[in-house]
């Protein structure tokens, strides 16, 4: 029998009872890992609170959180209206993108899938461009909201269009990916056209939006993204077992009694909501949705009961660290967050590829 050496004791001639204890130990360790990730993510968020152009020492920040009156009024505004929304939004966006990425990688059976693979980012950028360049927005809404609302509508719309197209062709994952790429190309083409006719002013605004930025964070965006997360998380959690089964193959999952088409459809709905909302408020931020789930998988394995929470936390952590980096990398300048995630995400991604052992 060609068995490779078992790498978790006890094994070999261990009894079932002993193996059960090993199993329990692994489960316990996973739970601790997830808890640990939560702590680290929160710490990163706190670090995010500490960084910024205005010098605010940690002690003052803590006091300012508990009792705002200990700070001068300008510093209160800095902490509560600027830094706190940014830190919270970073955590939420990272969580949303990573959760969407984890679900996508499972339902598309593609380890390179992330929320923006299916043309969502180009479509969202197109929506934003329509508002910025042509001044087209949903009538009746406040002009200040046109860019995020457009981005959201177009992102959601592109995924809806994708669902319709894919269902027309049978609903399998291959047609999903192909149609997604096509939609992405089409949106990019229109986007280029808009960029061509844009005025200098609008062009700069558009390019800046494309690079992703947490600077527009405020309590409203935090509230909305929190609501979206609160809405989708329970459903993601409920689908965790089914998603795990999907990893064993669609036929197997089907034979376990899972409606695979149903699962895929609703998963895509969740992914759409999460990605569209994140993009609406922050612009295009790549790599977090790709790298987050991979790191989580390396830590806790493929069981979605642990993978989903871990992805959420790793995503939040990565985004918080990126936010810190964006403020610190170049003195006096706050770099667009999308650039930071790309710069940092790329070497991490390559490192993951080189370290491939059991997953991917």
């Amino acid at each position: 029998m060609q068995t490779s050496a078992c790498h978790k004791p006890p094994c070999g001639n261990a009894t079932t009872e002993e193996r059960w204890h090993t199993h329990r130990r692994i489960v316990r360790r996973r739970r601790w890992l997830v808890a640990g990730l939560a702590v680290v993510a929160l710490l990163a968020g706190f670090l995010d609170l500490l960084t910024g152009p205005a010098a605010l020492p940690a002690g003052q920040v803590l006091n300012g959180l508990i009792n705002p009156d200990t700070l001068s009024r300008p510093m209160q505004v800095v902490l509560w209206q600027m830094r706190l929304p940014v830190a919270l939004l970073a955590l939420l966006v990272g969580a949303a993108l990573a959760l969407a990425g984890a679900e996508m990688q499972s339902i598309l059976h593609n380890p390179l899938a992330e929320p923006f693979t299916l043309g969502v980012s180009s479509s969202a950028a197109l929506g934003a461009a329509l508002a910025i360049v042509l001044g087209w927005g949903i009538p009746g809404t406040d002009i200040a909201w046109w860019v995020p609302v457009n981005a959201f509508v177009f992102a959601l719309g592109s995924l809806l269009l994708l669902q319709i197209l894919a269902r027309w062709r049978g609903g399998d994952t291959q047609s999903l990916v192909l149609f997604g790429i096509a939609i992405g190309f089409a949106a990019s083409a229109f986007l280029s056209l808009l960029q061509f006719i844009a005025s200098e002013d609008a062009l700069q605004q558009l390019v800046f939006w494309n690079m992703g930025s947490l600077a527009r964070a405020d309590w409203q965006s935090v509230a909305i993204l929190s609501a979206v997360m609160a809405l989708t998380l329970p459903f993601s959690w409920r689908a965790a077992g089914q998603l795990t089964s999907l990893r064993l193959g669609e036929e197997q999952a089907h034979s376990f009694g899972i409606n695979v088409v149903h699962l895929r459809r609703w998963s895509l709905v969740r992914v759409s909501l999460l990605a569209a909302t994140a993009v609406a408020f922050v612009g295009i931020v790549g790599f977090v949705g790709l790298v987050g789930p991979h790191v989580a998988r390396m830590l806790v394995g493929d069981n979605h009961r642990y993978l989903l929470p871990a992805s959420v936390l790793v995503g939040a952590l990565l985004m918080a660290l990126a936010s810190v980096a964006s403020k610190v990398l170049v003195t006096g300048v706050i770099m667009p967050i999308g650039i930071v995630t790309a710069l940092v995400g790329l070497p991490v991604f390559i490192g993951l590829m080189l370290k491939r052992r059991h997953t991917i």
Partner: protein
Amino acid sequence: MTKAGKWLTALLTVVCTLSTIPARAQIEIQDQAGRTVRLAEPARRIFLSEPGDFAMLAMLDANPAARIVAWNRWRLDDQTIAQWRSIDPVAFDRIHQMRVDGPQNLSAESIIMHAPDLVVLDHFFGKATHAIRHLERAGIPVAILTLEPALTAENPTEGLEKLAMLVGKAERGREIGELIRARRDRVVDKVQQLRELNVESPTVLMEPHAGIGPCCLSMGLGRSIGDLVALAGGTLIGSEIIKEMSGRLSPEYVTAASPDVYIGTGGRHLTERDGLVLGVDVEAGAARNSLGRVMQRMGLPHIRAMEQGRVHGIWHSGYGIVNLELIATWLYPEHFADLDPAATQLLLDKHYLPVVQKGTFWTSLNPAKE
């Protein structure tokens, strides 16, 4: 002195002293976005969003650096910076120099940390509604004012005069306003006369950042230097096509249109990019040569302006009123022979600026026409 006399003197002294104490009036203005800006006393810790605003403040206050706590110096070249610094190096070095390239990069936090008592944003940075909201919440007054005179407006120096009020130099602001208005009206009235006499309006190609890239960028009728051409009675080619501040025309279009006059704008920042070089500490010959180089690009050597020798260059950071007079003299040399832009610049420099700017601020291919 008698006892009564002593009392009277004392009383008079007290009354005189009391009357010379300035009334602690609150300063209140409406800025150019219609917002009410209130200050308890003249501003002494100002943030300026536009590099040229330093020069504007310098017209009001002999030592502007002492009143500025932070400033977006963005694309300003080192020579101009050195010039401003020479007024008061110590105060200047204390200014926090920021580089903000657009309203979306304006960080309220970076401004708040310097505890300004007034933030002045021009209409471009006035779009940073997010940042403005933060600043107001932090209790910092924000005034949206475009300080550079808008010569097409009814009151060109509205912004500058309002800033003058905010820094307690209202009288001086009014003076400058009257001067500029008078000179502007002189040109505009003459142009109106010429129009009534059906004098032909020369066609003009005005190219911003002349020389970088192929021919040609062109000003449109937006809020900028392009308006001066229209004010001075010229017709911008491409104005029908270009709807906003500037746009690109093809060399073929330019050759076919064959404008009567060419005016390029330039600055020191175009030196490395082989463009039109003008500004502080630029030598006249070098400026002229750079203009010559610029006109070598395809589409330009055969236009009417070249044949008639009516090719000129303007410094993009110059006084608007000086530029207006320059353009008027170039468009209608005979009719505006009495204008002396150099004298206007000298007047503004001497009376209103702490330094006299040295360098080449305009040039022509044909020296006699300068």
